[in-house]
C-alpha cells in the first residue's frame, strides 16, 4: 500500500454490501479486512427483505485508490453479492444508541428535556434510571452522550452505522438473476 500512488487524502468512507446469509460469511469478510490491514471504524450486518440476503454497512479510513481496492477485494469473495461505495453519493447515514442514564425523580424532567432537544425517545424508566433511544449520525449521538454524562451514564450500546443512498434508485440484491445491483446501475449509467 504505497502512499505515493494515493489519489486523494484518506478519509472515512462508507460502503454497503449485500452478502449471502450463510455460516462463516462474516468471518470471511472480517478475515479479509484483517489480512489486507483495513482498519474498520464501524461494521453492521442485518437481514434484508430478501430471503438469504444480508446487508452490511461498514466504514473504513481510506483514500480513493484504496477504496477501489477494498471494493474489488470484497467483490472477489464468492459470498458477496454486491458492493458499493456511498461516500461520494447523497445518502442517509444513521447510528442507533441506547443510553441508560441515572435519573431519580428530581432529575427526570431535566433529562427528558434534553431527550426532547435531541429528538430522542425515552424507552424505559425505573425509579432511578431512564433509558434513552437516540438515532442519528455519530456527532448527534456523541452530543447526546455528552449532555447526559453529568447525570451519570449507567451503560450504553450502539449499533454500527447503517447507510442508504438517497433518491429513487434501489440497490436491491437481485440474487435470482445473478446480477450485482451496484454494477447493474453503473452499467445503465454508461
Amino acid at each position, binding site marked *: 500500500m*504505497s502512499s505515493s500512488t494515493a489519489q486523494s487524502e484518506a478519509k472515512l468512507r462508507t460502503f454497503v454490501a449485500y452478502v449471502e446469509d450463510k455460516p462463516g460469511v462474516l468471518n470471511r469478510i472480517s478475515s479479509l479486512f484483517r489480512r489486507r490491514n483495513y482498519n474498520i471504524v464501524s461494521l453492521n450486518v442485518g437481514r434484508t427483505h430478501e430471503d438469504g440476503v444480508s446487508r452490511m454497512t461498514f466504514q473504513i479510513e481510506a483514500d480513493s485508490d484504496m477504496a*477501489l481496492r477494498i471494493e*474489488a477485494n470484497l467483490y472477489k469473495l*464468492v459470498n458477496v453479492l454486491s458492493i*458499493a461505495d456511498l461516500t461520494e453519493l447523497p445518502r442517509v447515514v444513521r447510528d442507533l444508541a441506547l443510553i441508560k442514564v441515572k435519573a431519580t425523580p428530581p432529575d427526570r424532567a431535566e433529562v427528558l428535556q434534553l431527550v426532547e432537544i435531541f429528538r430522542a425517545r425515552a424507552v424505559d424508566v425505573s425509579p432511578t434510571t431512564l433509558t434513552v433511544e437516540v438515532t442519528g449520525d455519530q456527532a448527534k449521538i456523541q452530543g447526546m452522550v455528552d449532555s447526559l454524562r453529568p447525570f451519570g451514564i449507567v451503560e450504553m450500546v450502539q449499533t454500527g452505522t447503517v447507510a442508504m443512498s438517497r433518491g429513487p434508485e434501489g440497490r436491491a440484491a437481485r440474487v435470482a438473476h*445473478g446480477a450485482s445491483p451496484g454494477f447493474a446501475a453503473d452499467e445503465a449509467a*454508461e
Partner: protein
Amino acid sequence: MEASKKIIAHAQPELEKPAPGAVPEPRLMPGSEILWDALVNLGVDVVFGYPGGAIMPAYDSMIKFPIHHVLVRHEQGAAHMADGYARVSGRVGVCVATSGPGATNLVTGIANAMMDSIPMVAITGQVPSALIGSDAFQETDITGVALPITKHSFVVTRPEDICSALKEAFYIASSGRPGPVLVDITKDAQQKSCLYAFDPSPVRLPGYRPETEPLERELAEALDLISRAERPILFSGHGVVQANATELMLELVDKTHIPVAATLLGLGGFPASHPSALGMMGMHGEAWVNTAIQESDLIIAVGMRFDDRVTGNLKTYAKNAKKIHIELDPAEVNKNVHVDVPLIGDCRAILKRLLPHVQKPEIEPWLKHIDQMRGESAVIDIKELPDEGKLYAAHVIHDLWRMTEGKAIVVTDVGQHQMWEAQYYKHDYPRRLVTSGGLGTMGFALPAGIGAKFADKSAEVWVIAGDGGIQMTAAELTTIAQEEIKVNIAIINNGFLGMVRQWQQFFYGGRYVATPMKSPDFVKLADAHGLLGLRATNRTEVRQMVERARSHPGAVVIDFRVEQEDSVYPMVPTGADLGDMIRRPKRETSEHNPIYETGSDES
C-alpha cells in the same frame, strides 16, 4: 472502478466432460462414492494424497473408480504435486488428505498455489459432524486455518452436498483468476447415502462473477498511448501463460516490434529466443531489461501484478512511463503502481480486441538503444568460459538447456539455482517452467516435478533443486520409485543455503550464520531409494552425467558439486531503485569469482 467496466452476465463453467445424453437415473450412493463419481465427471484421472481416519471411507471407495492415486510421503508433497500438475496441464490439480495433521500439512502447498494463482482443489476429511467443535481426535478447523490462503472453501456435512461443492470448487478454482479451493468433508457425509446422479448443469453462484470486460473508451486510450509511444516496453506475466495468450503476444510484437520483458512466472509465455524478447525483469533480471524499464515512456503490462521483486523501489519505478495494465483481477490495479489505463479482463480476450486496431509506433531509435545496452552489459556468457576444472551452477543449467534443446519441463525450487535457471535456461514454450514465485517455497521442486510428470507423461522432466530445498521434501524420492516414473533430479549442491549466504555476504558483513549445510551423500540416497545416483564435479562430467541420466530408463539423481560461494548477478537489493544493481564482478577485479561479464560473446 465499478463504473469503468461491465460484468458479463453469469459466466458458465466449462465442465471437462459434459455427460453425454440425459442425466442418469438417480440411485442410492454413499458420499464416499459420490465424491469420486463427481471427480470423474469433472475430468479428474489422477489425485495426490495420503489416507487417514477421517478420509478412510473415501479411500475405501476409490478403488471402484478410474482414478489413479499417487501416495505421497507427506501431505505437503500432495499439494505441490497437484500444483505442478495444474501448471503443466492447465487443468485443476487435486490433492487429498485426512483431517487434523493431514490437513495442516497441506497448508504450505495451498498458500503456494494461492500466491501463484494455481487452480487446485484440496479435499480433506473432517471428523464426524456431531463431533465438530469438540476437539475430537485429529480435529482441526482447516477451513478456518486456510481462510486467508484459499480462494474459497466449503465444509460439507451431508452426502447431498458433496457433488455440488466439488462442482463449485472446480469452477471457482479454474475460472477468473485461478486459485486453490478447499473442500472439507465430514466422515459421516462420506458414510451416509443419498439419491445421486451427476448433474452436468452449469454452476450457479450469484455472488461470483469473474468475467469482466474493459470499455471501448479504455481500449481506445490504450491504443492511442501505444501509437504515440517512443520508448514502449511490454511485460509478459503469468497471466499470458494461464490465458494461453502466447500467440496473441507474438502477433502484437510482430505488428509493433515492442520489446518484451518477462516476469519469473511469465518465462516461456513469450519465447525467449524471439528477437524482441529481452529476458527477465526485476531483482535478478538482466541490467539492460531493468534499465530499459526505467527509461521507458510506456509500459504495457500483461497478466502481472507489479510484485516487489519486479519493481524495486516504487518511488523511483519507471517514473516517466505511462502504464497500461491488462489484468484479470481488479484488486491488483493500482495496488503497487499507479496505472494510467487499466484494462480489466482476460488478457487473451483483451489482446484480441486490441490487435486489429494496433498501430506500430515509431521506435527504431529506442530499439537501437536497447540493443546497445544489451551489447555493453551482457552478463553472460559463461558458456564460452573454458573448463578450468571448476563447476558453476550456471554451467550445469546452460548445458542442460543445450542438451535438452530447451524443450524439457524444468521444475525449480527456490533460491540461487532458481534464478540461474531463469537466466540460463531459455524457455521458448509456455507451461514448461514450473517454479514457486510468490511464496518462494523451498521443497517445492521435487513434488511439483512429480505432478508435472503426471500432467505430461511423455515430457522430459528435470527437477532442479538446491542441496537445502531438496532435503525439505526428499522423502518424495520414494514416491518416484513407487510410481516408477522417469523424473531427473539435478541437485545444485554448494554446501550452503546459497541465497541466504549471498545476502549474508552482501548485506550482513559476510557472517555466514546457519547457512553452511551438511547434506547426505545424494548418490547413496538415490541408491537407497532404488534410483540411479550420479555425481559431477567438473564441466566435462556435466555433459556425461546428463547424457547418462537422459538415456537411463528410470529416475536419476545427479549431485552437481558446484562452486560454493558463487552469487547470482546482477542483483537489485530489496527496496533499491530498479536501475541500481549489484553487478557481476569483472574478471580483472576479482580473483575469487571468475564468472565475469564478457560483453562480447552474447551471440
